[in-house]
């Protein structure tokens, strides 16, 4: 049996009890340089609720064994729990079959898997692969490598000054010999929510499959892959309140069936002789070697925990918090926000005067405020907006308006320390 979340948050559509929810995240009580942690680096990784931490511990305490191998009791338990977790994730993202849920290390591996298998099968010399100008390096480099090997061309959908893809340019690009579109659902550097349903529909009208990089999207609410009609959807456990080192590639069964394996080894085979290997069925064909079983189990728990939340209320709460932070930052002297798309998730990238973001980050840290500074693994985005780096505050469902106030106060200290 799947262990149900040990705590549930009572909420009505209008009210969302953030304090009660914060109580489920032990790390939020940690002191940093004598200050209560203000964690605003959720786009890098989210914190973990007690249910997820317990789940991983419980797995190791009560059922640790290798999966899909032994006939002994623990191995059977571990296998059942691992597969139950896959089923929880399938249900959470609305996939039609558990065969479509491949456990990987994270978004990066999921994208590399598709590039190395589907990509090599279908992309050839002169073909085009399409990405956007706001992609994370993990949704750029695998395609560059593929294009380098095959002689294909990487096309990039340009962005407007607000940080949105220019859809008319996308339509033009799609008229080329495009074999695949790979686009982020939400930009990690700008916070832009892309109109992916519309973009997927445009590609599909021309018979072009679409991979969605969902790394940033999963912490801001449930995603339904059937509703999106995407062909591949890649995401990481650690950005959705689950553990690091585990992620998911969703792929449509018909596509996964035709794809060659990604890595060879144990678990991905039915039979091996020195002459010939018969590959295993989906999804095991793509899961060579002993997987991150504890991580998979805890990710299943994370999706169950997420299912128990009122996402209508949280969606509203997060949008209000984003608005509050955007207004407060805009009022700070010398602050310029990078990424002002109409549809945004809780990510605010900014620069302040000519203070380098790393100096901002160091001074904020001394006040207990954790943000990300740098190029956010999206150097082309930095180049597009003419900055070497930005400071980025990213919010999750447990952040509060008083934490935004703490950020603003700490930024005031930055000006003071830097003598501005």
């Amino acid at each position: 049996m799947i262990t149900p979340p040990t705590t549930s948050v009572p909420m009505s559509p209008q009210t969302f009890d953030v304090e009660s929810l914060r109580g489920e995240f032990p790390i939020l009580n940690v002191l940093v340089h004598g200050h209560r942690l203000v964690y605003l680096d959720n786009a890098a990784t989210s914190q973990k609720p007690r249910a997820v931490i317990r789940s991983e511990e419980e797995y190791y305490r009560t059922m640790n064994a290798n999966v899909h191998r032994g006939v002994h009791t623990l191995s059977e338990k571990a296998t059942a729990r691992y597969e139950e977790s896959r089923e929880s994730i399938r249900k959470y993202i609305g996939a039609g079959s558990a065969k479509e849920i491949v456990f990987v290390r994270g978004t990066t591996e999921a994208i590399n898997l598709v590039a190395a298998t589907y990509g090599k099968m279908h992309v050839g010399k002169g073909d085009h692969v399409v990405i956007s100008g706001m992609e994370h390096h993990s949704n750029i480099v695998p395609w560059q490598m593929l294009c380098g090997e095959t002689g294909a061309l990487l096309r990039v959908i340009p962005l407007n000054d607000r940080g949105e893809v220019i859809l008319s340019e996308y339509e033009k690009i799609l008229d080329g010999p495009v074999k695949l579109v790979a686009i982020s659902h939400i930009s990690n550097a700008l916070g832009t929510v892309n109109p992916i349903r519309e973009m997927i529909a445009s590609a599909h009208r021309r018979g072009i499959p679409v991979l969605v990089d969902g790394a940033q999207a999963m912490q801001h609410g449930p995603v339904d892959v059937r509703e999106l009609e995407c062909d591949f959807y890649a995401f990481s456990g650690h950005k959705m309140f689950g553990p690091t080192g585990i992620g998911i590639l969703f792929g449509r069964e018909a596509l996964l069936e035709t794809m060659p394996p990604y890595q060879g080894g144990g678990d991905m085979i039915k039979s091996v002789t020195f002459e010939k290997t018969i590959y295993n069925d989906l999804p095991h064909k793509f899961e060579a070697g002993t997987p991150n079983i504890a991580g998979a189990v805890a990710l299943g728990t994370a999706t169950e925990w997420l299912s128990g939340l009122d996402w209508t209320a949280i969606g509203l709460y997060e949008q209000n918090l984003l608005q509050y932070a955007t207004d407060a930052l805009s009022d700070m002297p010398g602050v310029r926000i990078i990424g002002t798309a109409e549809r945004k998730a809780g990510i605010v990238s900014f620069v302040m005067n000519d203070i380098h973001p790393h100096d901002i980050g160091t001074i904020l840290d001394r006040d207990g405020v954790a943000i990300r500074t740098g190029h956010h693994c999206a150097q082309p985005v930095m180049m597009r907006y003419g900055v070497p780096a930005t400071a980025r505050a990213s919010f999750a469902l447990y952040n509060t308006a008083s934490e935004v106030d703490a950020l603003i106060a700490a930024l005031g200290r930055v000006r003071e320390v830097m003598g501005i």
Partner: protein
Amino acid sequence: MTSGAESLYQDIILDHNRSPRNFRVLDGAHRIVEAYNPLCGDHYTIYLKLDGEIISDIAFQGSGCAISKSSASVMSTVVKGKTREEAEALFTAFHHLVTEGADAGEDLDQYGKLAAFSGVSEFPARVKCAILAWHTMKSALHSDAKTVSTE
């Protein structure tokens, strides 16, 4: 509670960040080496003129955080006119100061202007910023390296 960030951002550092010294292209330089930290994007070019064993002139260009820029600037002022050997000794002293901190009972005055960087050792994530230009200067003295990275 104070943030403690002031121990890092001392006045000399802020001054050199705001008005970096020897911040120019050096025509006729004998050594031109790039300094680059791919993680944070700090990027400088360091120019050296050598007159036998003496660093007769040094200049730099580029951009980065206050720590890396002020470090490059202060370095340029202290190594100008020094012999290679003296510059290397300064490198060793600076490296020790920003990685280990001053030794107990040690007189900071002996470090001269470099003493402004005595707070860096308390900020491990920023040691690389402080040391970037120095590594670059050292490799410019030694070799024909074109880019030096602290990552």
